[in-house]
């Protein structure tokens, strides 16, 4: 057995970020990854020889602080590529939002969009510092922790009476109500809903946290815009890996942890290392889990080490994924009706009802009969992702339930894949003949491939009861756990999912206090 200061379980981007921060302070850090490559859902995936796409196909609000701290640019990460146009295709003329401008809608909607975007960006700016902070403990009265909220309250107040009132009014609004208030164009409304909903079990009419999710995604320098860095999203992963190795992190892939070792003394239980599925064991002063909370506590710690109430709060985290992933290898650049060049994020849905109806199917365990989706051609931004003059189509398809009513079979998956392709073909006439190969990942496939419960991108819905000091649950919300020496640093923690690096950053900060 080799002794480490810290073992990090899971080399997703948060695991890499946390491990690197710790190693930079001189800690001996071991980073263990079950898959044969690092990066988790952002890892490159060669789904057909020569054709590449990660599950997470764009970047929007990766923390610039993390990029700076970890010197990612020097390690090959170039986030400076331009923002992808957001293109909505449906019944009529496509609507395009790009660099704060909008086309394909009335002048009234164009003006409304500027107001809307400005308002949301002001709110996002108030919330932004919040995402980089450890949330106060419930019942804590420590000045520092109370100040976290006091500061937010003050910043909200500084927005002025009108904006503050508006913030409080819309914070829990369904996306549909928010966009209905602002716009006439159905296509525009549907595409603006998208970023509030994706990844969670939510549709335009669902109240709860879609607006907060949207504000979370509007944080950062891109203000909600998405981009594909040169070298693809996986260049973020490779730069994180290079930075980690440079800091001295010992990275081991194909090293699935089967158990976190728990020892107890008179005072309490303590995580002292890990056992691997291959029989190896490693000891460390502390263990940091960069995987989801359910796997961490139920599978790796074991419920016998946990209180019953705590265990059941972990159990009831809503973490069933609803997004499927379609990958197509194409022999040419596809054309979309009315779209000059398919180099944006193309939201395929005619209106909000279409999203809602697609969700209705999934609520009862069926894949949507008429799926809605976000299509990106990553190879249009980075030609290295496909062989010469050939292309990759990558689509997030909603809503594909993790728990299919009749279970997932190969045939069921093929049917959903074909349905998704049929939907795209409606807007891209020649596409069917361009397809060289295809792949569809249901949330169940994502779970099996990427070791993430429910195949959920964010390790749990971004919902009010699963946010802030309730994420993943109280008593584990400060990157801590009821077990001494066991910490969390994944999307299961505040502030949550997406490729941001924030959870990894915040956890490292907490550990180094």
């Amino acid at each position, binding site marked *: 057995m080799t002794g480490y200061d810290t073992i990090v379980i899971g080399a997703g981007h948060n695991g890499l970020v946390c491990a690197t921060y710790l190693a930079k302070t001189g800690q001996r850090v071991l980073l263990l990854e079950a898959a044969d490559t690092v990066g988790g859902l952002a890892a490159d995936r060669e789904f057909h020889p020569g054709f590449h796409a990660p599950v997470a196909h764009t970047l929007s609000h990766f923390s610039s602080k993390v990029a700076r701290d970890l010197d990612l640019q020097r390690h090959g990460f170039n986030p400076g590529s331009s923002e992808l146009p957001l293109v909505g295709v449906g019944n009529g003329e496509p609507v395009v939002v790009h660099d704060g401008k909008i086309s394909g809608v009335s002048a009234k909607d164009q003006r409304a969009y500027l107001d809307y975007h400005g308002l949301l960006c002001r709110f996002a700016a108030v919330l932004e510092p919040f995402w980089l902070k450890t949330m106060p403990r419930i019942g804590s009265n420590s000045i520092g922790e109370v100040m976290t909220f006091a500061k937010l309250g003050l910043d909200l107040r500084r927005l002025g009476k009108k904006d503050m009132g508006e913030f409080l009014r819309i914070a829990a609004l369904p996306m549909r109500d928010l966009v209905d208030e602002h716009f006439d164009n159905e296509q525009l409304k549907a595409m603006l809903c998208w970023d509030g909903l994706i990844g969670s079990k939510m549709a335009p009419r669902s109240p709860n946290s879609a607006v907060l999710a949207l504000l979370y995604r509007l944080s950062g320098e891109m203000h909600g815009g998405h981009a594909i860095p040169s070298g693809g999203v996986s260049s973020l992963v490779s730069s994180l890996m290079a930075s980690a190795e440079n800091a001295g992190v010992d990275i081991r892939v194909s090293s699935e942890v089967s158990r976190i070792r728990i020892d107890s003394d008179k005072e309490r239980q303590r995580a002292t290392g890990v056992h691997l599925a291959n029989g190896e064991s490693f000891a460390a002063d502390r263990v940091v889990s960069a995987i989801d909370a359910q796997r961490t506590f139920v599978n790796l710690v074991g419920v*016998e*080490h946990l*209180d019953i109430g*705590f*265990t*059941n709060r972990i*159990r009831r985290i809503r973490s069933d994924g609803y997004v499927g992933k379609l990958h197509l290898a194409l022999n040419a650049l596809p054309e979309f009706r009315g779209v000059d060049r398919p180099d944006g994020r193309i939201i395929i849905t005619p209106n909000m009802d279409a999203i809602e109806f697609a969700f209705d199917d999934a609520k009862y365990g069926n894949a949507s009969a008429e799926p809605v989706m976000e299509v990106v051609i990553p190879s249009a931004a980075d030609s290295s992702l496909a062989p010469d003059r050939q292309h990759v189509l990558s689509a997030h398809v909603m809503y594909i339930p993790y728990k299919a009513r009749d279970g997932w079979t190969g045939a069921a998956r093929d049917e959903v894949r074909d349905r998704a392709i049929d939907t795209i073909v409606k807007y891209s006439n020649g596409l069917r003949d361009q397809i060289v190969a295809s792949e569809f990942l249901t949330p169940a496939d994502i779970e099996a491939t990427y070791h993430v419960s429910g195949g959920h991108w964010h390790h749990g819905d971004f919902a009010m009861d699963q946010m802030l000091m309730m994420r993943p649950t109280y008593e584990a919300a400060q990157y801590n756990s009821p077990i001494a020496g066991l910490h969390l640093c994944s999307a299961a923690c505040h502030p949550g999912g997406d490729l941001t690096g924030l959870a990894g950053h915040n956890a490292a900060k907490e550990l180094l206090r």
Partner: protein
Amino acid sequence: MSDLSQTDPFSGERPKLSPFHPRLEVLNVRDTWSVWNGYKFADCYYDAEYEYFCIRNTCGTYDICPMQKYEISGPDAEAMVNRMVTRDVRKLGRNRVAYTVWCTDEGRIIDDGTVFKLASDRFMVVCGSSCVAWLRKASYGFSNVTVKDVSDELAALSLQGPTSCAVLKKMGLQGIENAKPFNIQHFPYHGDTLMVSRTGFTGELGYELWVKRDLALTMWDDVYAAGEDYGIQPYGETATDMARLEAGFIMPYVDFTEALKTVHFEHDQTPYELNLGWLVDLDKPHFSGKQALMEEKKNGPKWRLLRLEIDGNWPAYESNVYDSESCNQDIGYVTSAMWSPAVKSNIALAMVRSEFLDGEIWAEIYKSKDLRPYRRMSKCTIRKKPFWTAARARSTPPADF
């Protein structure tokens, strides 16, 4: 009955009938019934005090069919039960019973009950109110455990009193006299099994008899035939409450409130507050609430349940207790009180704030005489031991009759 259930608009709301009901209904001379866990259940049958004296002097039977019974089985059963309860059931021998409590994460008591170890991978948990939701939560994460509610499948009868062992011997249960307290014995019985545990809630020599529901009346008749010359008498809730208070046993919703059903913060109790620290094994592996209980043990409980002997002969029903005769400071409240016929003393259980344990304790007692209220302040003395104990409750074999 079937005709009634078709025409009776309240059929689904009427109390369930115990498998012993055909006998109970004849014996319940006063027709006094209440309901426990959905079962029609006797407060008393003839006269509560008479029934109490039967427990103490001859023997009585108490219908415990309404008790909730859960069978927990499978390779992970022991680990699952052990993680739920405060005692170490790994130390429990086969065919032994342990009284225990189980707690929330915060170390507050959810319920008390008994754990029967029937085999290395089979347990029965018996408690006073439904625990099925908690058991389901407690079993989550254990891959090889089955929790089955057997409350309605098993009939159970408590037989308590000095002559109880003699009754069972006469019934033909050979070797029953060798059962030590908390032992379980099994007897072949009409093609099935009669399980007898030396357990009870009276502080007496006593047994609890467990049999398949279909055999309930057969067993009742056998017990009553054998008990005829031994002063057997059914007793109800009122007599039980008297006997248990003398023995110092606590009653849910009288002396403590179940944590999961308590509305107000910390209106529930911890094992240490109820003097049940002996049930909390902090040396065993992790169990639910352990960390909180370790903290509490270190800091000391905020309240203590005290056994009080109170001057005078007015039972201190629902009394507040004070630090002085002049009621200077309210320091707690009485949970149970009675004039004890066996001890010939005015006894009570009371919850008192820990910081007042060393001072004087006075109970403010109200008594109505011909509808006119009278008030009296009575001095209380703390009793460390149970108010009443009997050597026969512990001796094996018990004295014969």
